[in-house]
């Protein structure tokens, strides 16, 4: 399998406080890689390096290399906007833009591509279908994105993320603010998404990681303690810390 992302000794700092230590990972293309660990272990922080969203905050900085398709995207010359187009991100809470369902998905398209109106409509439909949302919203494309239910909003965000034709999808606890039924739908959607994208998901819900991911990385206090096939992590973890965490023996 092709390695899509190769993190090499990432160190991350919040001001003077070091949050990540020598994180190295190799992420396979077209697989779901789950990132688990106790709160504050750095799992979200790790993900936020990938699309350099951490740069919003002045006192945060990273050291190390992050190769995507072999290219170090942490290099200063890299075009951040283009990088972010290539890496879709889904957040903990659904964040539909304050516009219609259609415009929500069309917005990134218009931002990045020059397309005719019909082509935009096509791609919006395609993205909404890709997010298993088309059937539910096709009759209310003009309604506000905020009028949808929580689960639908989250799928709208997924549609928006995949509209710009990214290659990687980062999901930061995408179902933590969503009810179980909607969670189910999104988890099923992920099975579809991994056919086209490389998916990374941060989750505090171990069962979720177990259910949906192919690979699992266990973070603890900023270190990657163990990384391997999900099956192996959950049936036969190699590190005591991992074992303690997944069996709930912590604390």
């Amino acid at each position, binding site marked *: 399998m092709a390695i899509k992302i190769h993190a090499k000794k990432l160190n991350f700092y919040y001001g003077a406080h070091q949050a990540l230590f020598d994180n190295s990972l190799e992420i396979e293309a077209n697989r779901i890689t789950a990132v688990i660990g106790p709160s504050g272990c750095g799992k979200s922080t790790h993900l936020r390096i990938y699309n350099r969203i951490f740069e919003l905050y002045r006192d945060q900085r990273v050291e190390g290399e992050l190769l995507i398709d072999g290219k170090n995207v942490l290099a200063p010359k890299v075009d951040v906007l283009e990088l972010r187009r290539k890496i879709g991100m889904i957040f903990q809470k659904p964040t539909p833009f304050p516009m219609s369902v259609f415009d929500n998905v069309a917005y990134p398209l218009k931002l990045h591509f020059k397309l005719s109106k019909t082509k935009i409509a096509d791609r919006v439909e395609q993205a909404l279908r890709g997010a298993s949302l088309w059937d539910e919203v096709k009759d209310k494309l003009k309604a506000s994105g905020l009028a949808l239910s929580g689960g639908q909003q989250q799928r709208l965000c997924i549609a928006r993320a995949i509209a710009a034709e990214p290659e990687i999808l980062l999901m930061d606890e995408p179902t933590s603010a969503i009810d179980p039924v909607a969670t189910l739908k999104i*988890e*099923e959607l992920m*099975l579809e998404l991994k056919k086209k994208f490389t998916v990374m998901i941060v989750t505090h819900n171990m069962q979720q990681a*177990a*259910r949906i991911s192919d690979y699992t990385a266990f973070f603890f206090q900023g270190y990657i303690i163990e990384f391997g096939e999900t*099956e192996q992590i959950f049936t036969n973890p190699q590190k005591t810390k991992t074992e303690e965490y997944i069996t709930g023996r912590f604390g």
Partner: protein
Amino acid sequence: MKAHFIQAHTILKEMIAEIAAKAEQAVQSAVDAVDKNNVAAATRVIANDAKIDEAEIKIEEECLKILALHQPVASDLRQVITILKVNNEIERVGDLAVNIAERVADMALYQERKIEKFDFRDMVNKAKAMLKQALDAMTYHDVAIAMEVIRSDDEVDIIHRNNYGKTRDMILRYPDEAQYYMDCLTVSRCLERIADSATNICEDVIYQENGHIVRHQHSVKSDASQ
């Protein structure tokens, strides 16, 4: 959860169907080999058992994986556990087929002698039918068939008990052929144990469907008569 679990579960069901087919085939081939004194066929059965063993381990790993990753409850859990146990029984059936096949070479030595042969046909048919029905009961979640299989286990037991007496009589009558009759008894015992396995599978099926463990309720029986 569901989609992933269903996917994994479907694969599991296919795997168990496959191993069941293999075991059934092994029993059939072994019995045929006894019937036709076909040592080559018997050797093949013995060789093929490795595949069944391999499949058994794969299924068991898959079951454990499902338990660890999907953490099923209620009927989902019962199905996985049932498969885990049925898988074990099927592997045992495969082993018993091997045991039968191993006797073939020995028995073939007596092929030409004019001794009174054992007629296993009735027993073979009954045991094979039970095995087949048990697997059907599992596949189609059919408790009625399962109950029937459990009931018919007694018949096979009786046949085996008769075979035991017959063996003793035969040995007394033809001490020189003791080896042959002991082989026959082994075959009979294997068939009886195949029927037992079928019964166990059916008990597991009933657990899968009803959630009640019905084992041991119809008197202690396994190997009860030799």
